[in-house]
């Protein structure tokens, strides 16, 4: 994947670029908003990481300009600003996701994966399948093998999100934001509780577990460990 990093804090940029390269991505970097804008307009990127506060051209402005040129590259904002309404501003300007510094690298990687996946959506699906687990989005029915699974509405949404991102790491914050639509610190491991309940429904009594915990990052659903 080609990734553009626009970040003026050079040390943070170095870590970001190195980390992304280690994860197997091709990375370009820019130190200010103007270079960032001209790079993002001249080369095709799968995703751009844009710091909210940049010299020469503010991150918000950069993304607004980008969108005005008809460019739809997914953008993830990184912000060190106080965030009560900054997130809203970022998304309004045309950003696709928003991450407050300091962030865990695993969180950033998981979000980038989700953004890039969103960019290449498969045809509209009415059925999701991971291994022998099937989710019918029309009848809202779930079954594993021949056993039908009874899910609460929220459990259904949780499982749907995990299955749409099958094979990808999904963090707790991503689940809280996407499934519960909350952008706050839940103080406790509430998400873990919901995951363990879901796990009890889809994995308990079956030979091969599908829902895996990824140490230091989050969760992943996939057919084979």
């Amino acid at each position, binding site marked *: 994947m080609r990734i553009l990093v626009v970040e003026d*804090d050079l*040390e*943070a940029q170095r*870590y*970001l670029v*190195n*980390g992304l390269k*280690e994860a197997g991505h091709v990375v370009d970097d820019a130190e200010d908003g103007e270079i960032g804008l001209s790079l993002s307009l001249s080369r095709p990127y799968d995703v751009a990481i844009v710091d909210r*506060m940049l010299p020469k051209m503010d991150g918000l402005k950069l993304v607004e300009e980008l969108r005005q040129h008809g460019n739809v590259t997914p953008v993830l904002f990184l912000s*060190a*600003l*106080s965030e*009560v*309404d900054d997130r*809203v501003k970022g998304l309004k300007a045309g950003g696709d996701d928003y991450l*407050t*510094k*300091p*962030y*865990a*690298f*695993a969180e950033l990687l998981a979000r980038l994966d989700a953004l890039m996946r969103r960019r290449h959506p498969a045809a509209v699906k009415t059925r999701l399948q991971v291994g022998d687990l099937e989710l019918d989005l029309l009848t809202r029915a779930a079954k594993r093998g021949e056993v039908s699974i009874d899910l609460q509405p*929220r459990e259904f949404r949780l499982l749907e999100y995990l299955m749409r991102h099958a094979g990808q790491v999904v963090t707790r914050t991503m689940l809280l934001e996407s499934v*519960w*639509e*909350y*952008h*706050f*610190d*839940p*103080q*406790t491991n*509430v998400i873990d*509780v*919901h995951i*363990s*309940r879901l796990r009890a429904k889809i994995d308990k009594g079956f030979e091969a577990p599908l829902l895996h915990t990824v*140490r*230091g990052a989050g969760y992943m659903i996939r057919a084979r460990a």
Partner: protein
Amino acid sequence: MRAPSFFRTIAFRIVFIYIAIFAVSAAGLVAFTYWNTKRELDAQTDQTIDSEIVGLSERYQQLGLGGLANVIMGRSVRGTAGLYLLTDLLHRPIAGNLDGWPLLMYEPGNFVEFNYERRVGNGSALRRARGRVLTLTGGFQLLVARDIHERHETVRLFSTTIPWSLLLMLFLGVVGGTVMSRNLVARLDSINDTSREIMAGDLSRRVPVRNTGDEFDILATNLNRMLDRIERLMRGMREVTDSVAHDLRSPLNRLRNRIDAALRRLSPESAEYAEIESAAVEIDQLIATFNALLLIAEAEAGMAREAMARVDLRDVVEGIAELYGALAEEKGVGFEVAPSGEAMILGNKRLIAQALANLVDNAIKYTPEGGNIRVSIESRPTGVALVVADTGIGIPDADRARVLDRFVRLEASRHSPGTGLGLSLVVAVAKLHDAKLDLADNAPGLRATLLFPHETAIRPALRQITTPAAVPAAAK
């Protein structure tokens, strides 16, 4: 503040004062004119009578009774204003144009008013007269009077106009008062509208100045200067929090990055990995504390006011209950949400959800297995209350105020995870919404109540946020 009831409005008071002043001054004016006219007319009549009496008594002295009688008869033409009657001691008429002695009681020398019959065509009419009696030497009585019917009529007519003129004054008072107060109230309303919009978060609004240089303009100018200063302070505050956030987050970010990079290089089985991983957990805790502090600062500075919108507390309760209910169940604690109707308030949904989450999280943390937690929305006379009641260990009376301070953690909770900022954040969120956090004994347990006053619930002036059609649902 909502608009006062009609009788307490400035407009009503001004109209009322206007009417009162008009009525009193009109009544005074009419009464004075009436009294003065009557006095003036009486004085004229009295003067005429006096001079006639003087003339007639001179005639009497010169010509004697017979002569006086002749003079009187000469003057006594029927139908004129002048009235005369000369009688003997027993009031038997000798000469004059009055048919009989008209007075029952009188004091010689004083003016008297009396009625007499005057022949008009075939009949007669009772007329009013004013006159004076002179006792002549020899006991003869001379009554000289003047018909005052015309004057009387004038005065009577005058008095019938009094109620009408009062009514006119009343009308003028109402009109004058309304016009005056309309102007006054319009100026006050513009100030009130502006302050409401400012309270709702639009700090850029200013009170309109009309450049008339009057007291209202001075007030508006002063208010605007004050608002300029507040806006500058708020902007300064935002810049400070932003730069504190930026200056602390950037190094924290680099630190977190280094730890991540180190973890990626190590094998998860090595001893260093566990060590560095626990450092990562530690720094994440530090970040959480920092974020909570920053959020508290922002909420207390009222910054989040800009993101205020209509929020149904039911949605918040439902969402948080769904999220945390599982946690309570896992711990073996009963979790119940009391059914309630729509509870609209004006607020920041994210912060209210965070505050409720903190309260519920605390309740779950401090309620032992087998206990119960109940979340409810209660409509109270003073506002809408969000209540989280548990049957847990509660908070001793003495500590209840203290736990709202930052970083305070009671002995009983030292071992459990948390930043010690949970309740402080709830307090800050409450303050942002003009709400009140109350901690009470649930016997046993804790009963935390967030009371949102009606004023946050209903702010009809907020046209840009609340649509008129949607307001009545929340209004009471």
